[in-house]
């Protein structure tokens, strides 16, 4: 665990439990998670299938609420927020990169990236255009500005998604298995792009992955097994190696 001042903490999960109903029973997806993530971190959440990675990201991303415990985003507790307030929080603070890219199919690259800015409603048209073009340039798609998602490759689509996630300058970007639908070379460049943006923009990234090669890029690896954190390091080579595989370490 890190000793950071709470003002630097972008994510603070305390005693978070998440249960899903399964018929009459309940499945505990998370069994008491305590997790602090500071601004500017490039963190990966690892773990075997069903270990709770997506669940953790959903709770951090405020698209789901914990059964008990508290999730704080940028110092704000989300426990008692309404749907509307949660939505606003997501809009202002969080960027999302999805496994299946999730671009709006009927909009072109520019429009997809512009969408969050429009939802925020803070910038005028010209400022928006500058910002959108700038971020699209950063992900290297300036030539594809007017293309629709179905005219792009998987890697290009995920770049658009990254641009969309970053265009609002969010405090935090979440990515659930962003490379799962990409071949490993493309996946690698996507992670490298994220890492580069983390370095230059100081944006906090939290992403989950199965891929050890991807994991190796992270500065911090949090390993989940059965809804519990079994390992948390700062990207020490050995630990990453040790966590590679099916997660025996720490059990």
């Amino acid at each position, binding site marked *: 665990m890190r000793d950071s001042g709470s003002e630097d903490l972008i994510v603070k999960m305390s005693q978070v439990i998440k249960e899903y109903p399964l018929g009459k029973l309940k499945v505990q997806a998370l069994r008491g998670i305590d997790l602090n993530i500071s601004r500017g971190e490039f963190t990966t959440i690892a773990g075997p299938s069903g270990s709770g990675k997506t669940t953790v990201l959903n709770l951090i991303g405020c698209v789901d609420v914990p059964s008990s415990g508290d999730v704080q985003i940028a110092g704000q507790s989300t426990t008692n927020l309404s749907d509307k307030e949660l939505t606003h929080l997501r809009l202002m603070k969080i960027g999302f990169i999805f496994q299946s890219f999730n671009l*709006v199919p009927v909009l072109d690259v520019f429009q997809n990236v512009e969408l*969050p800015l429009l939802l925020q409603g803070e910038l005028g*048209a010209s400022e928006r255009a500058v910002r959108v073009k700038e971020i699209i340039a950063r992900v290297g798609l300036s030539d594809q500005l007017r293309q629709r998602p179905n005219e792009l490759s998987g890697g290009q689509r995920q770049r658009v998604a990254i641009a969309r996630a970053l265009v609002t300058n969010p405090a935090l970007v979440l990515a659930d298995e962003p490379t799962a639908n990409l071949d490993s070379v493309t996946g690698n460049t996507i992670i490298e792009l994220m890492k580069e943006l983390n370095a230059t923009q100081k944006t906090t990234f939290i992403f989950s992955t199965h891929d050890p090669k991807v994991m190796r890029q992270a500065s911090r690896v949090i390993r989940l097994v059965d809804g519990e954190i079994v390992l948390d390091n700062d990207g020490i080579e050995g630990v990453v190696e040790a966590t590679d595989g099916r997660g025996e370490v720490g059990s």
Partner: protein
Amino acid sequence: MSQTQSSLRMISLIAMRNIMSNKVKSSIVASIMVFGTMLLVVGTALLDSVESSMQKVVTSSLTGQLQVYSSQGKDELALFGGLTASLPEIGEIEDFSRIKSSLEEVPNVQAVVPMGLTVSTGSSGNDIDEVLRQLRDAASNNDAQTVASLSGQVREIAGSLLEEYADKEKISNDLNRLDKERAALEEVQKDAFWQDFTQNSQERLLFLDTKIAPLANNGRRFFMRILGTDPQAFKQHFDRFEVVKGEMIPPGQRGVLISKRTHERFLKHRVARELDRIKREIELEGRSLEDDELLQARARRLSRQYRRVTFQLDPSEVAQLEPKLRDILGSEASAKDSIKELIQKFLHVDHSNFDARYDFFYAQVAPMIELYRVNVGDVVPLQSFTRRGYVKAVNVKIWGTFQFKGIEDSDLAGVVNISDLLTFRELYGKMTRAQRAELEALRDSIGVEDISRDSAEDDLFGGSDEIAIVEQDSQESFDEFQDVEVMAREDRIKQVENLTYSQQELEQGLALNAAVILEDPDDIQRTRALINQKIQQDDLKLKVVDWKEAAGLVGQLIVVIQIVLYVAIFIIFLVALVIINNSMVMATTERMAEVGTMRAIGAQRGFILVLFMLETLVLGLGAGFTGALLGVGIIEILGVWGIPAANEIVRFIFAGPRLYPHVSLSNVLIAAGVIFVVSLLSTLYPALIATRIQPVVAMRGRD
């Protein structure tokens, strides 16, 4: 704010793109909505046009904007005819002057015109009377030659009457009487009857007067609906009313104006009437003698009616007409043809000769025959049941004929004849149900006969005129008639002209209903309410109806059309609603990930709602605009071409042979409103479902 503008633009963009990317679905939905809107615009515009044309016609011919009549009556007022042919029992207004003074105090009421509708039968002099008069003169002058030629005419008449007996036997139950009548007619056919005519002229003429003339007279009854009113007030307030022939009933004078249609249809010489009818169908309904079999059949039937012409021709007229007929017939006429064959051949009209013969008929033949049974200036006995149930006959002067401008051709509009209120009061009777039924039976038989004649071409003519049947069934009921008939024509005229009345007499007395003429003819419903208040206040025991209700069945027709149209439109939009709803619900499940993503990246529920609603709204507005444009276009084109009236009733509704519809802004606005509501309603449910989609679904799913 430019932000909202931009987001709206983005939302519209997404909506547009979604519409475009789902072309099949969108075009199905759009075409239904285009069709619905078009129908709505065209339908409401047509309906409005019909209603306003009908309103103009109905209100300015018979009803006025409002009508009042007794609240005690059993039936509802139906000035243009109701469900049955019978006259409705609408109760009575005992003292018209009281309601007149009372109602004229109501704001916006310009005038109150009294009315009362009753039925009567009329009778007119006829050809045989004229022939017998000449015969009497010739006999007293011992003019054997004239007697001989007149005898030919009498035999003609008797011959044509005889021909009817085969048919009469089929429908009569008094065969004994028929046998006697036939024997008399056969007697006249014999040469013996005429041989020593001048010696026995008194006896023979008596036989003709008593045995033959009544038989010929049988065909001379006619049926009339008489609307009694204040003729001067009527003329002043019903501006479609115009006198065609003769003159207006002068103030204070009694008499009748016959509707031109009654005059032309029921009182005109049958051959002339048939010619008119063929001409009318060629001109108004675009039929042609060249290929229309029905019309050809009618033309064939016409030539069999030659006797109706020949027996009215005296020898000098025959001499005059024969060379002209040979001239127009050309090679069709052969040297040995008599006037009979010539007329018969002349009446054999076809496509090539119809116009020439029609003109010839009116120029050459018509002046020699009695073109109308009742002529302007005649005084005719009308009869009906009196209030106490007796049959009563009244001599009335026919001042002229009239028509309602714009609906001259309509039989519906020609259904009433107009008289002064005093004549009406004499003719009006409180009939028992049985008496009324009897009179209706008469009337029905006229109608039925007229119709069956159209279809069964080989039936009756030379045969019985429809009116002959009336007489046959009604002989017993109308005994008193003979007394009236006996009065000499000059005496009748004198008697009638002495019968004058004052305005006070006219107004202080019975009427059945009254037209309320408004200053602002569009302010009907408010005035109606005011009148109702006044009725309450003054205890007038009246009810007030608008022109649509007062018109009767025709007025209800428009309500029926309205209902049919609205039901059709409702169904179309219901189908549209269900289809849109279903496809949108399907779309929400297809677009779960998209919606979830938008929610995840910060779109509020309202945004999703607007997004979905706007999609249908854009589609609806596009379709609505197209549909409205098409609808307006159709109406505009129809407004130039005009919609031809298919039949007589439609001609009445259209206030003429063609309707030139117009479209108003309200038609378009109504359509726009409906399409807007339908779009919103059909998408509301799927849009609400879409707002329930959780952002977390964005994290699932692979594509």
